[in-house]
């Protein structure tokens, strides 16, 4: 501490320690919080089920579903002082003969802290962002659930996963929707 550089060194080191301490305090104030929420509503408006050649993964004839949906809700309760942004994603979950649990992400969105949508997110009657190919051709007549999940990206600490407690249960149509003039190549085995 006899010269400016050594005083600056000591001061800066203490400053960083204090900064670390308040970051830890921020983490400690929110690590037990439950980020599940029941004020967000999902609804499905339309389902279309087709059989198509899966060009993304298995290259087999598979079921291709298109689910139109709406999401409305208020996310401001999830934005405490430790939340930097929220990664939302809509998942369709179902059981099939190939797999005990299938989870397909249909849509996602990053909600920043300063977005106006945080107070009132309205996603009205949209098509999914990502293709919904089944692993096989087992969607006809299957029961499924639409769940909106989110991942909280914090300022300091863990990144908890949580979900909307309002899930939508529905059933896929029992037959394919044919487009006019389309030849459906029916799969050989169900």
């Amino acid at each position, binding site marked *: 501490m006899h010269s400016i*550089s050594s005083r600056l060194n000591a001061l800066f080191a*203490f400053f960083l320690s204090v900064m670390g301490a308040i970051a830890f305090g921020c983490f400690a104030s929110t690590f037990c919080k439950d980020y599940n929420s029941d004020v967000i509503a999902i609804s499905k408006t339309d389902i279309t089920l087709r059989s198509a050649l899966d060009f993304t993964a298995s290259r087999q004839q598979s079921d291709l579903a298109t689910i139109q949906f709406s999401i409305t809700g208020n996310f401001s309760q999830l934005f*405490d002082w430790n939340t930097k942004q929220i990664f939302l994603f809509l998942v369709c979950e179902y059981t099939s003969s190939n797999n005990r649990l299938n989870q397909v992400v249909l849509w996602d969105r990053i909600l920043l802290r300063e977005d106006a949508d945080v107070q009132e997110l309205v996603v009205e009657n949209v098509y999914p962002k990502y293709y919904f190919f089944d692993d096989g051709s087992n969607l006809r007549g299957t029961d499924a659930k639409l769940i909106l999940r989110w991942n909280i990206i914090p300022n300091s600490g863990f990144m908890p996963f949580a979900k909307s407690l309002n899930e939508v249960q529905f059933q896929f149509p029992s037959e394919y929707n044919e487009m006019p003039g389309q030849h459906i190549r029916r799969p050989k085995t169900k």
Partner: protein
Amino acid sequence: MGDLWALVFPKIDTHYDFKGQKQAERWFQIIHVVFAVLGFIWGYMLQRFSIAVYSVLAAFVISAILTLPPWPFFKKNPLKWQPSQNPYINSDLKKKKVK
């Protein structure tokens, strides 16, 4: 590493005496802890973490202004050195020369 201040202001001494160093360290520790606690509470009440961060940054700036430059109040207790003596007076060397 030499002191850069000495290159720019060679006539101003940047040394604190020991009591001054202890006081300077105590000052910046107290400023940082007080600002951090107040900023943390204020930030928690408004649910904005940036408030806590800016408070600690403000503490750093204030402490830097207070403790980095060579203020005179940190030099109030200089070490009491013995008066300097000419090594040739009262020594054998001088006596030999006189004789």
